[in-house]
């Protein structure tokens, strides 16, 4: 059957284009404009050229925040992806347990970021927090306000608690879409549990895993609210990620020019890393 070409369909795309223009393109253009100028407010701008970019690229504060961000994202992916797959594999596929598990898994995702931060800020406190109090009671010296290692552990556990569910739900969606015939064939062939996972479940989950890895990477690389609420970037600068540094520069110091330059570099890095992830995973998929 011949395809019907109707160019009027392009008009259906227009609302999305307008929406994206107002929410993404125009703000991005404005950030580019700000990044080469200086302002003290009242819409008065002076040309600064590449000054803010040069300042940023030679700033140890920026590179330290970047390294922290990369380490954080790496740890998050290394924990959440395997853990999410493991939980999804062990979730029931039939019966009353399915809705129960799905609801339990969805709960952390429904909690707003700032509330998650507040929950863990209180939970980890030494004086009134359940976690902080009992860890110290059993002799573990835990204090996320003063110890950078404890602050990192708290933020990582908080993120794992908040977002592993997303990986679980995506993997579970991939798993339940596998027809029973695959498992029956594997059973006839006497395939081991590992072989079933390696050659049936993992390939079938690959597309959703790609989405999970991309979402978790971008989200963890842009994390702001939770660590800001729990540690405020401290102790010292130990949990100051790029986004926190950016907000401090833009809103705390009202340095819009340097903040815009930082935003652009931040944006380019996310764009590059997301492209690398996407390309590697889609091409691996295509080769199979």
């Amino acid at each position, binding site marked *: 059957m011949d395809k019907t070409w109707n160019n009027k369909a392009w008009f259906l795309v227009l609302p999305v284009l307008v929406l994206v223009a107002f929410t993404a393109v125009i703000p991005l253009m404005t950030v580019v404009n700000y990044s080469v100028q200086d302002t003290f407010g009242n819409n008065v701008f002076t040309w600064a050229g590449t000054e803010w970019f040069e300042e940023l690229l030679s700033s140890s504060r920026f590179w330290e925040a970047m390294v922290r961000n990369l380490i954080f994202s790496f740890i998050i992916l290394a924990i959440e992806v395997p853990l999410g797959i493991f939980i999804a594999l062990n979730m029931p596929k039939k019966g009353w347990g399915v809705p129960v598990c799905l609801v339990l898994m969805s709960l952390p995702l429904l909690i707003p970021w700032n509330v998650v931060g507040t929950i863990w800020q209180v939970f980890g406190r030494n004086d009134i927090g359940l976690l902080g109090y009992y860890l110290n009671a059993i002799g573990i010296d835990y204090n996320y306000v003063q110890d950078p290692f404890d602050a990192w552990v708290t933020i990582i556990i908080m993120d794992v608690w908040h977002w592993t569910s997303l990986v679980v739900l995506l993997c579970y969606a991939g798993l339940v879409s596998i027809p029973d015939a695959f498992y029956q064939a594997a059973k006839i062939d006497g395939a081991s549990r590992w072989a079933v996972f390696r050659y049936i479940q993992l390939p079938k989950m690959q597309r959703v895993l790609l989405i999970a890895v991309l979402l978790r990477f971008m989200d963890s690389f842009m994390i702001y609210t939770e660590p800001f609420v729990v540690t405020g970037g401290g102790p010292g600068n130990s949990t100051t990620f790029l986004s926190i540094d950016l907000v401090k520069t833009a809103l705390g110091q009202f340095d819009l020019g340097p903040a815009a330059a930082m935003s652009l570099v931040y944006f380019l890095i996310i764009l590059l890393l997301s492209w690398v992830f996407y390309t590697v995973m889609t091409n691996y998929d*295509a080769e199979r």
Partner: protein
Amino acid sequence: MNLDLSWMAWTWPTAAFFATILLLLCGMAAWEYASPGGNPRVGILRFETTRGDRLFLSLLGSAFIHLAWLGLVGSNLWWALALSVVYAIGVFRYV
């Protein structure tokens, strides 16, 4: 309606930058109209790219070339621009 865009802080250099991007996109659209399909091929990266992918790689790479030049060499970006053009030609030829 008073459409005051002073908050966007436009300058001639940034306007020229965006006009160039827009022209590139229009050029790509015209190219696609003249030769539909995106010309997919497998280049030195050993995976399939369309000409849209190659433009994306050229622009992204050029941005990093300029940043690297600023960080390592200095603020005179004409050589970085020349290098970016050579890089973009390489991407369109070999990737």
